[in-house]
Each structure stands twice: as C-alpha cells, then as structure tokens.
C-alpha cells in the first residue's frame, strides 16, 4: 500500500506501460508528472522549451520506435493541438495527458476545471476521431494511463488522458500491484527500419497526393473506421443502477467522485472513455430513467454531447469557478427535483 497522488499514479502507469520517452513543459496542476518522471533513470526525459516542442519531440521519439508521452494543462494543450492533429494524420502513437485548470487564457491559476472536453474532441483543425479516457480515482489514473498507451498502439494515434486538478492532486492509498493489465507492444516499424516517408500530407503509401477529393474521402473513412474499431476494445465506464429511482446522474472525473455520495437516491453513470462517446451505453442508461442530470466543471460541454446520444433532455449542473462543494451539488440536485420529468 502506498499513499500517492493522481499525477504520480499517471507517471507510474506510464512507466508500467513501457514508456521510454517523456517531454514536457511545466504547468500547474500537471507538473508533478514531470517532477516524478525526471527522476526515472530508465527513460529519456526532457524539459522542453515549450509545449510545441514537447509534443513534437514526443512525435519524433515515437517514430523512432519508443512509447512516448507528454503532459500539460489547458494552455499547453492549446499549443499542442497542431501536433495532435499531425499525429492523427501521420499515425503516430503517443499519450497526451491534460490535467485541467480553469480557462480560457490563464483563467484562475491554478484552480481545477473540466473545461477542455471539447478541446480534446475538436481542438485541432480538420476532422479526426480521438480516443480519450478520464480517470476519477488515483488507482484509475494508473490503470487508464496504461490503457491509454495500449489504445495509442492499437489505433496508431495520440490518445488523450484527461484529468482535472482535483484528481491529479488527490492523494489516496492504493495498491498499484493489484491492477491487472496487458501491454500492447509496438507493431509499427521504426525509423531506420524502412518506415519510409512519414508525412501529414494526404498521401498514398507515403507518396503525397494533395489534390484528389476522393482520396481524402477514402482516407477519412478509413481513419474513422480504424479509430472506431480500436476504441471498441476500450469501452470503459461504470454504471451503478439504483432500482428505486428514475433519476440518472452522469458525471466524470472529480464530479463522478462527488456524485458517488448520492447513489442512495440516484443512479450514476461514469464514463471513463469520454471519446468516442459511449453512445449505446448512455442511450440505454438514459432509457431506463426519466431525468438525466450531467454534473460537470464547465458550462455544459459534455452535456450537449450526451443529450445528442441520450435523445432526451439533459439537465446540467455546472460547477464553475474551480471549486466543487458536495453541499452545493446537493442543493442543485434538490432544486432539479422540483422540475418536471421528461
């Protein structure tokens, strides 16, 4: 048993997954990851000049054949977005951790938030289909970092591990050795082994072809299917159904932790795989309830996506300003009880 922090568990998870390269730029509340990994002798570690360098160095390391990761928070995530899009197009497996804080801009340094959900889904330019996991406990930080590496190798894409300042800084006593996992090894060729030409231009087998609409359509269809098929193997969520209620709470990260205090009166659906969104599972859970409530630390980013897959009205409890108080969440839940069911 060990008392460790979410960010440290993420670092341990990365090491357990066989990560051999870390590049990062300091930012609260993610910095503990780099502080921890700076000491790891079995990896190459670099405190880069900025987040743009961090993501691009990780891309280079991954192409050279090693598992690579970088971690940041919202502002750094914005700087990494072009690189994330590149890694999708050029099929570079890697893991990007985002321990969220309040934004936009410098926001409320460095209070926790969940405001980057849409940034993960749509932050880079062009169309792409990211895989994203979101742990809500310290042992989940460990487990899902490992799974993020697996999903990255499976999908040949940059997989995002979302976290928030609360979960990243949360200390819990955990027994990491009890976590069961399998590791996916690198299947993609390395640089120097005949990898050929890697480019994010539209290409056919490494030969750029940038003027052919049908080739693009073909590419996007293939990318979509590849990401979908890979994600199918990583359907992580928890559904705690309370037979005595028609009210369902959907929450992730720290909000799922807070919501777990209300399972005596509510059902709780906790998505861990945020993207691709667990459409079938959410729709099914929503069908079994009349009132769907999403609790999240933003102005309703995931609620809108849930509403579209649940095909029902979704009520949002937005926890804003970097602080979550169970008593205030309870007040908001009580107030919703007065509203008509859908």
């Amino acid at each position, binding site marked *: 048993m060990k008392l460790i922090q979410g960010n440290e568990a993420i670092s341990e998870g990365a090491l357990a997954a066989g990560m051999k390269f870390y590049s990062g730029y300091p930012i609260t509340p993610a910095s503990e990851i780099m502080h921890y990994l700076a000491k790891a002798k079995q990896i190459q570690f670099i405190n*880069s000049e900025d987040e743009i360098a961090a993501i691009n160095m990780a891309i280079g390391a991954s192409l050279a054949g090693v598992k690579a990761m970088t971690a940041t928070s919202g502002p750094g995530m914005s700087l990494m977005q072009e690189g994330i899009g590149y890694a999708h197009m050029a099929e570079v497996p890697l893991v990007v951790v985002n321990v969220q804080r309040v934004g936009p801009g410098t926001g409320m340094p460095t209070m926790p938030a969940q405001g980057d959900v849409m940034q993960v889904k749509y932050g880079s330019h062009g169309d792409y289909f990211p895989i994203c996991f979101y742990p809500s406990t310290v042992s989940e930080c460990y487990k899902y970092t490992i799974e993020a590496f697996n999903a990255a190798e499976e999908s040949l894409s940059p997989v995002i591990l979302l976290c928030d300042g609360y979960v990243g800084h949360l200390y819990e006593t955990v027994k990491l050795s009890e976590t069961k996992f399998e590791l996916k090894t690198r299947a993609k060729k390395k640089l120097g082994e005949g990898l050929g030409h890697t480019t994010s231009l539209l290409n056919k087998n490494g030969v750029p072809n940038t003027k052919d609409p049908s080739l693009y359509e073909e590419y996007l269809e293939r990318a979509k299917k590849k990401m979908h098929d890979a994600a199918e193997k990583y359907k992580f969520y928890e559904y705690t159904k309370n037979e005595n209620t028609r009210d369902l709470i959907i929450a992730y990260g720290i909000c799922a932790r807070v919501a777990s205090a209300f399972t005596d009166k509510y059902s709780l659906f906790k998505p861990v795989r945020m993207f691709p969104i667990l459409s079938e599972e959410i729709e099914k859970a929503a069908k079994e309830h009349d009132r769907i409530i999403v609790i999240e630390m933003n102005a309703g980013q995931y609620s809108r996506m849930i509403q579209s897959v649940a095909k029902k009205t979704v009520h949002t409890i937005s926890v804003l300003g970097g602080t979550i108080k169970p008593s205030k969440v309870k007040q908001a839940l009580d107030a919703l009880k007065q509203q008509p069911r859908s």
Partner: protein
Amino acid sequence: MVDMTCREFLEYVDLDRERIWCPGCTIGLMFKQIAKAMTELRIEKKDVVAVSGIGCTGRTAGYCSFDSVHTLHGRAIAVSEGIKLANSNLKVLVISGDGDLIGIGGNHLLHAARRNTNITVICNNNEIYGLTGGQVSPETQTGVETITTPYGNPYPQINVLGVLKSNKKFFYARSTPMHLEHLKNVVKKAIAWDGFAFVEVKSYCIENSGRRQGFKNSYDMLQTLKKYKIVGEKDDLNEDEIGIAKREG
C-alpha cells in the same frame, strides 16, 4: 581527385516522385550535394533519417530513398531532438527553409543549439517564404520588396552565426549552390561534427521573390552568389565569406 560519386549519390534519392520545385530552383542542386556528401561518407541508409518542415525546401524529405519525416511547419528540429533522444544511433539530417527553421521554428533552433543536440541542420536560405507566394522572411534583406513588404523590408536579417556563437561549442557553415564542391564539403564536415551543426545555404527564389525584384531568370540570380569568397575554417565569417566557423568548446 577522381569523383567516385558521379552516380552513386542517386542511391539516396527517390527518383520516382514528382518534384514540386520550379524550373530554376536550386533546392535540387543542394539536395544533390547533400546526397553526394552522404555517398562520400559512406552513410548506410538504415543509419540515417531526413527530417523536413513545411515549405518548398520542406518537401526534400519526401524525395529521400531512406526513412524520412515531413513534420509540421517549424517543428523539424523538435521532432529530430525526439528521434535523437530515442535512438542516438541514428544520424539525423534536418533539411528545411529559412522561414521554417529561423522564423516559426526559431525557438527550437535556439534551444537545440544550446543543448548541442547531435544533429545536422541544413537550411536552404532563399530569403523568402517561397511556397506561400513570397512573403517576407526573417532572412529577407533590408529594403527588399516582397508581397508583404511592398514598400521594402524595414527590418534587418537574423544573424544566425551570431546566435550560434553565443554557445560555448558551435559549428556553422555557409555555402551556396553556386559553389557546389564547397557546398558538398561543408555538408560532409557538418555531418561529421560531433554536436549541433548548422549549414546555411545562401540561395534565392526566382519565381516568388526574384521576379518581384526585377530579375528576369534564375541564371541572373545565380550570378549574385558570385559575390561570396571561399575562406577556410575560422572563428568567424564576414558577410561575404563562405566557409566554416566553429569552436570546439
């Protein structure tokens, strides 16, 4: 000396791919000299990687017959540092443009040079953003008209040698596609250098800069490169000198 490399260099070049370069462009000449330098150094294809950014010069990686990476605009050096840290046995050749390496990617240049990362950076300095139609670059000479400096460029060029010289150990070479043998030789020395090596290839862009300046053809522009005098290895190079400036550190 007999030139042993007259055709051997083609081993490093993918001849099947359609070139995007304009007639009269010198990037191909530079690429040929790089390939010849590699031939003379007997570099095995499995031991080397070419990395480019975005731009006309950035397409060079795509014409190599060995493994290569076409990165984002400005990020060739950052990607190369990742490659090098992950596998220090690979020789990494960065081949890209002035806007890419010195403009948008300037921060990586500064820091890779400071870290003395063991890579070779070859910059085709055509003093313009060629691919995008001829906008001013940090390497455009003062007074020159470009599409975004219609009244003349008000700013001076970056002194890359000066930037590199601020480090204890450095290697900087300057050459031109007018001085092909010299270019090949400095590339060879840059590749053999243990540490961060930068080769500035002074060139030009006829289509997207030269014509706007009043040049009629590539040949006339090539003549402007005659002003450079070949000097040997020194601590410093004057503006009109081509050669090597380096410090063992």
